[in-house]
């Protein structure tokens, strides 16, 4: 176990964390400000990944793929809100769960019909496919580094937007007190549509960046959706700052646990058992973390004020 490996895993955790944050940022506002249980946020990740991969394959240019996919995800989020979601705001949580569960089924199946059940692959540009030395003698995949940088830039933009702008102030007020959000009146419709489309875009960006790292396939967003729900539970519903910190924690725990837990288990069990159980136990680690935090802080680390 070398310093190199540890450093590499910390960077991988960071990369997973920022990606997770991009999914969780919009979702925490949808849950907290709009008080809307939206399960199909994972589909936005998938749509982003497919849009980028398909355009990249068609044009042969990765950056064109990304640049065209971003507005596409915005439009898809905007349309989804306009066509379906806005009719569901006044429904109770259970009905929202049901309807958005139906949307998941629909999107997964639509993608399967459009692109087939197999995974979609696209090539990285040469500039991103090599390695970069993050420290002398410590090479790190350039693309993952790029993901971290882009993710942090997005996070910074989201953070500045929420903390510095008038709309951001409205969002924070809305998260602290959902009734107050409702009292904002006519503006609220535009605000909700904006959160929704922006949330979809960032989730889509997460998908675009994950695409080359994992498989672009139907249902790829769901594991990310559930992890980002855990992030939101830990961070506190409606808190973008909480989502960021929790996403980094979850990303690190998940990634670092996955690598080091098997070797830790190997101290107590035979190699086969340890290698088999390690990754799954590592996936449990995140939920154990969630349970422990819940025992001490039932509303997460950074609950929006005014919420119980």
């Amino acid at each position: 176990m070398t310093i190199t490996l540890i450093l590499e895993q910390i960077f991988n955790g960071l990369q997973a964390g920022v990606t997770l944050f991009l999914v969780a940022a919009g979702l925490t506002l949808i849950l907290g400000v709009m008080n809307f249980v939206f399960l199909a946020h994972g589909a936005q990740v998938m749509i982003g990944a497919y849009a980028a991969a398909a355009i990249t394959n068609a044009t042969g240019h990765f950056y064109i793929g990304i640049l065209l996919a971003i507005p596409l995800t915005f439009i898809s989020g905007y349309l989804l809100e306009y066509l379906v979601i806005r009719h569901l705001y006044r429904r109770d949580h259970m009905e929202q769960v049901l309807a958005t569960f139906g949307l998941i089924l629909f999107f997964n199946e639509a993608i399967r019909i459009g692109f087939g059940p197999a995974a979609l692959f696209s090539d990285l540009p040469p500039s991103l496919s090599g390695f970069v030395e993050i420290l002398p003698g410590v090479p790190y995949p350039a693309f993952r580094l790029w993901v971290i940088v882009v993710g942090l830039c997005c996070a910074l933009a989201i953070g500045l937007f929420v903390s510095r702008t008038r709309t951001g102030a409205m969002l924070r007020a809305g998260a602290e007190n959902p009734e107050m959000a409702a009292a904002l009146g006519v503006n609220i419709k535009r605000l909700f549509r904006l959160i929704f489309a922006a949330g979809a875009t960032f989730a889509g960006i997460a998908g675009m960046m994950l695409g080359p790292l994992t498989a672009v396939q139907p249902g790829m967003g769901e594991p990310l959706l559930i992890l980002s729900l855990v992030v939101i539970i830990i961070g506190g519903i409606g808190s973008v700052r909480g989502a960021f910190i929790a996403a980094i924690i979850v990303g690190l725990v998940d990634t670092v646990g996955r690598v080091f837990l098997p070797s830790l288990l190997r101290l107590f069990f035979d190699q086969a058992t340890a290698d088999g159980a390690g990754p799954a136990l590592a996936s449990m680690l995140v939920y154990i973390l969630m349970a422990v935090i819940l025992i001490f802080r039932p509303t997460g680390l950074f609950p929006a004020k005014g919420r119980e």
Partner: protein
Amino acid sequence: MAGILRILGIIGSGMAHNRMLWLVVAGFGLFPIFTHVADLPFWNDLAMRIMLLGIAAMGLNLVLGYGGMVSFGHAAFIGIGAYCVGISQYYGLMDGWLHILFALLACGITGLIIGVLALRTSGIYFIMITLGFAQMLFFLFVSLENFGGDDGMSIDRAEFGIIDLYEPLRLYFLIWGVLVLVGVMLMVIVRSRFGVTLQAIKSNETRVEAMGLVPLHYKLVSYVMSAMICGLAGALFASWQEYVSPDIMHWTRSGELMIIIILGGLGTLAGPIIGAIVFLLLEEFLPLMLETLLPAYAENWMIIFGPLLVLVVLFGRGGLVGLINRIIDRLKGSSASRGRS
């Protein structure tokens, strides 16, 4: 003796008030005659699956429909129940009664722990936390390499004394018997002082508190009971499937249970079982329908089912039980004065 008569009286009056449930249950009791005459043994299998999911959904309905707690993690209890059978068999215990006892105990204890933690919150938090715990248990079973890990484990049907579940229809009527039992139990509970208090809490927790009751106690007890009912369904599920894997407790199954309840009618006794019939028939026949209409897309029935769910939410009120009641009301209304409440 007087006590037994009293209980029978309670059950009888309850049955008179819930004819729809008992009509459906009786229908399942008679169904094998139909499949025998029509020579469609495959349909018995489907009926068993419907009853199993129906039992689980009835369990969930106690907290969801009567208690107003939107639990998104009840598949975990089905899984625990099923793994109690699998793990018992792994260690050579074949007695089905023991399996059921273990399933009830394990689900009761897990339900208590999750309930204590999750019921400190409400609303969206509760939904997500129950989902989170279910995922945790899912990954726990994925990690248990001894019991098949991701791939699961093959098992035999359990042994219930002289009843050999490999004989035709024995398993069918075991499941049916449990359906009757769970139906009677829930029917009595829902009308009891406890059940009424639970529904009052769903309606207005602040008012129930102002009556000097502690809502958490009632919610927790109902949560544990519903977990145990799902565990019971899970134990039978394992025998029916002769196979257990983490798949049985995938989070989408929690969603399915919720779909079943809302399709059938939230907070009604007959709703979950009627919802299970409709859900599984759709799952069975939508692909067949597509195969005749659009052969190329036979596999893609979800593309219809997904939007169907959205439409049910947007336009369906009170589920199928509500719809049936409205039709009965209209029929009665045209012939006699209105009598239903």
